[in-house]
């Protein structure tokens, strides 16, 4: 190859890019590591913004359209920033039978947010997951990464309101 390809520079001097770079380096900057790298970006920054997608694309030499295609194919990746706190309601079969729809409706009515939306103050995002494998404790909710089983409306309110008051 005649043209030399220089390593692209990180979008900012944010330290978190070092973590992203480490993931790419560990995978030998292989195109196959696209999903791994996007995981790292998402875990580090909370979401995938355009500069991040461009940077990953350039670093791994994956076409922009492929990066966007992958980022929008998988549920776990999000292109929008999330709220400070996330509340993930499981919508697997067991949870569905045992009351998730009512919980979702409750959240929508009380806090005015639907699946994938964030409260106006940016505090709480409501997300759903297709079965988190906690069927025996249905309905299950993951509050900021901590799973809770047999969640009632009261429990949910308690947590969400604590967040909103914080």
């Amino acid at each position, binding site marked *: 190859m005649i043209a030399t390809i220089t390593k692209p520079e990180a979008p900012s001097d944010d330290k978190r890019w070092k973590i992203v770079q480490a993931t790419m380096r560990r995978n030998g900057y292989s195109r196959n590591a696209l999903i791994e790298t996007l995981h790292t970006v998402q875990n580090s920054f909370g979401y995938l913004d355009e500069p991040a997608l461009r940077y990953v694309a350039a670093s791994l030499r994956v076409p922009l359209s492929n990066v966007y295609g992958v980022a929008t194919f*998988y549920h776990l990746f999000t292109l929008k920033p999330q709220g400070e706190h996330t509340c993930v309601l499981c919508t*697997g079969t067991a949870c569905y039978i045992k009351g998730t729809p009512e919980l979702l409706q409750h959240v929508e009515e009380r806090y005015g947010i639907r699946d994938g939306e964030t409260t106006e103050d940016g505090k709480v995002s409501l997300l759903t997951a297709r*079965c988190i*494998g906690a*069927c025996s*404790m249905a309905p299950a909710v993951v509050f900021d990464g901590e799973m809770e089983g047999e969640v009632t409306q009261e429990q949910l309110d308690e947590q969400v309101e604590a967040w909103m008051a914080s």
Partner: protein
Amino acid sequence: MTPEELIQIAEERRGQQAAVGKRINVCAAASCMSRHSDKIAEEMSSHAESLGDKAEGVEVRCVGCMGLCSAGPLVEVDHPADEAAGNDAPKTMYRGVSMDDADRIVEAAAGGTTVEQLVQPTDIPYFSRQKRIVTENSGYIDPESIEDYIAADGYSGLVTALTEMSPNDVLHEVTISGLRGRGGGGFPTGLKWSTVAKTDADKKYVVCNADEGDPGAFMDRAVLESDPHRIIEGMTIAGYAVGASKAYIYVRAEYPLAIARLKKAIRQAQKYELLGTNLCDTPFNFEIELRLGAGAFVCGEETALIASIEGRRGVPRPRPPFPASYGLYGKPTLINNVETLATIPWIVRNGGDALASIGTAKSKGTKVFALAGKIVNNGLIEVPMGISLREIVYDIGDGIPDGGTFKAVQTGGPSGGCVPGNLLDMPVDYESLQEAGTIMGSGGMIIMDEASNMVDVARFFMEFCKDESCGKCTPCRVGTAQMLDLLEKLCAKSATEKDLELLKELCDVVKACSLCGLGQTAPNPVLSTLRYFEDEYMGSLVGGVSGDGRPVPDVETKAGAPDRIER
């Protein structure tokens, strides 16, 4: 690692274990952990420490899933064997253990007594009717300790295979075991392995499909969290048998605990040279890498899974060619589900015949199910193939809670169907379930009582399939969306007979024409509920009006519709 070294580690560990008089096992699988069992274990440890001499010989440790998740957090105390009475080490299981109970359980264990109010009887059918192969170590060993696994005969299958068997011997045992793919399809595992083994290539891969995506299924999660080394051993044996040296575990990112334990297990196995180069001083090399899914059910499909491991959109491609000849990076690839691979070490240790002696004529061995929904005993069970659904629901599951009435059991998730009460005596095996219009699936078993509306159940699964359709092929992309619209219309009681006819037609087209398993099976929940609960569909139709608009309704009642001829 030589066979002798392995035996030595096992014996050393068993010796250590024997020295511990009273072991308190705390379930630290996801379900109990979410009820803070890890904190309870910590409290128990520190309390035992504070008791000093009084708690001599008491060891608290975290173990994997004990199965009866609905009664969690579960704690089991192994008392010392009473040789005078000729007893084996008696065990006491406690249910619903809270932080407040931690101290008194430690004290009771130290004093050789029990906390009666918390005792979970273990002589109930839930425990006695199970046959544990895949979950043999779950709840007994510390999932984060390779020594514990080795002490439970772990890795002896691998070492035996490498040192005493040829790859063909291994293939032979797997073939005669009659093992079939536990991910749902039920393809004979021996045949799949032989196909990969026979294909000539410079490089081959083994992939463990741990992308458990069925809503209502958590068997793989429990196995990965409770006994991760089992998967590593199974994969390594598979690699040896088919001639692969590199493997991937494709695991859901939604399972952080399983991921952490797998990572740890891989490191431990590398340290003990059970992964790496020249294993057991043979020319066989094997390495395993983790790959995280990112939330796409379709990646359970083999070709989509391959695309995802390669870092692309998880979109399936037409088969043939099958991954066995053209798979990951274009190389022959063996893809097995977690439970399938978890059965392998047992087969190698006990022989293919031993597995073949369990089960029915065509379905051998055991199957792990996740019992959930409206049933008393929620949790994980492993039963011999051929057991009846009635035994699972009423004996092992202990029936429907709150005096409810059984209506149907759903198996196979979004690819399966609902089995009604009059078929409860049916044996659980691949063929019988298929005949009944559902599938074995990966093992989710959701029990429904009379409160469940079956049209709504069908709608739920169709919504799932529509959301999870990758969008590549027309029938699945458009068909699932159209079917969902029709089911929503039914649920809103605004559908006509014509809509129902159209729904049936779309079921047929989507099933026959879709590219991959997701689309081909997406109509199953509708078809099976139509088969057994058609009256509920008929009851959902809009009253009395037929779709063709005949006879003419009274148009004069339509406001603002002046009866004039043309505008």
